[in-house]
């Protein structure tokens, strides 16, 4: 009788094959070796679980913050530009081009053509204003983070009404900051503020006596937009930029990247 090799028994243990099951049933020696192998490997599974230590809820954010400045710069391709904010920017450019072309086409006297793109170096005053603005927005993101986190962790739907007053204050501020962000050429900040504003409005507009289903729906919206994550990333991003000694340059693409 040919006995099973150790390799064959191991494959059997891991369920890679069952070719030798029949043989084991009739061969006490091979079956004993298999039982011994199984006992050993089962013991290994029980005593050395290799269960990873739990990582906190912000782990993804921590990893992102650790690597984001180490990522190689990459060219943006045309299809990556097909996002709402870039769509709006493209529409604005087309509008300007169309308007200018229209004026030229109708033969209107256009005196000295003036460049639409001015290369400017921010003055000390401008930089100070930008810093003040970004500091305020960073603080706004932190306060929004607290409101959103309260809602995400709330045990009862009552918590929604408790946060409505705060959300109402934040909506008004958000609108103002978004306009300012656009004015100082911070489209990525404006984009997150816009998303935040929409969710805050949803919270504000909840009728009195919100149900568990209402609370769940708000949570789903926050979660599906990754809003809490974006708010935290943007807040960290602004703090990082504010700590830099050099003038705070505007970011024309997403600062989350």
């Amino acid at each position: 009788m040919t006995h099973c090799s150790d390799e064959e028994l191991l494959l059997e243990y891991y369920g890679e094959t069952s070719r030798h099951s029949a043989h084991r049933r009739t061969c006490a020696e091979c079956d004993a070796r298999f039982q011994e192998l199984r006992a050993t490997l089962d013991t290994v599974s029980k005593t050395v679980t290799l269960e990873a230590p739990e990582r906190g809820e912000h782990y993804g954010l921590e990893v992102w913050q650790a690597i984001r400045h180490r990522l190689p710069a990459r060219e943006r391709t045309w299809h990556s530009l097909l996002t709402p904010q870039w769509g709006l920017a493209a529409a604005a450019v087309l509008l300007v081009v169309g308007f200018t072309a229209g004026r030229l086409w109708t033969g209107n006297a256009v005196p000295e053509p003036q460049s639409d793109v001015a290369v400017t170096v921010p003055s000390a005053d401008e930089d100070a204003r930008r810093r003040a603005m970004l500091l305020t927005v960073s603080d706004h993101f932190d306060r929004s983070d607290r409101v959103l986190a309260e809602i995400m962790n709330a045990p009862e739907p009552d918590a929604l009404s408790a946060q409505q007053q705060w959300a109402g204050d934040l909506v008004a501020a958000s609108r103002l900051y978004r306009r300012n962000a656009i004015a100082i050429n911070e489209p990525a900040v404006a984009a997150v503020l816009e998303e935040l504003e929409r969710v805050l409005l949803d919270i504000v507009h909840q009728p009195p006596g919100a149900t568990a289903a209402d609370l769940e729906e708000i949570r789903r919206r926050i979660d599906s937009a990754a809003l809490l994550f974006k708010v935290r990333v943007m807040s960290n991003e602004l703090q990082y930029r504010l700590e830099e000694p050099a003038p705070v340059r505007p970011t024309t693409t997403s600062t989350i990247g």
Partner: protein
Amino acid sequence: MSTNPPSKQAMEAGDVAAVLARASGGDGEAFSLLVNSHARMAFRLAYRLTGDERDAEDVVQESFIRAYRQINRFEARSNFATWLHRIVVNCAMDSLRARHTRRAERMGEPVEDIPDAAVSAEPSPERLAMSTEIRRRVDASMDTLTPRERIAFALRHYEGRSIDEIGRTLGVQQSAAKHAIFRAVKKIRASLEPLRRTT
């Protein structure tokens, strides 16, 4: 519900293809969402493969940087988690090789021939519970495995991956993956042999 950022399932329910397309176009915001939704999975795997928390952290970071660099090679019809799994395994392999080399240099021994000193030590049953001793011995024997043996064993024993899949992940023949697992099990069994004789 917790304040966890969107889960992988939530992202998949959304438009993961669009996120990937944006990420491959160099959109960092899109890539940050992928990091956010897969970081925990990557850490669990990295920890299982390296058995060390700090090494696992490094592996996770290196894996995402590598994924970002190579994202243009990712095929849209594939599964991002599966693709990332392979990258984590390769990064863990590099980490284990570096650890192996450092240890060999410290000991002045050839890289592939590290003596099983810890395993050969006599157990102290009076002072240690049996399970603690088993754990110590298995941990010690895991440290003597070559990087490939360790990864192949962890993927088979702890991750439940098939030998065929392990071969593809490691980029080796199925037979090479199989033999790596055999050797790993052999070393682990040898390390536990003295305990079996005492019980």
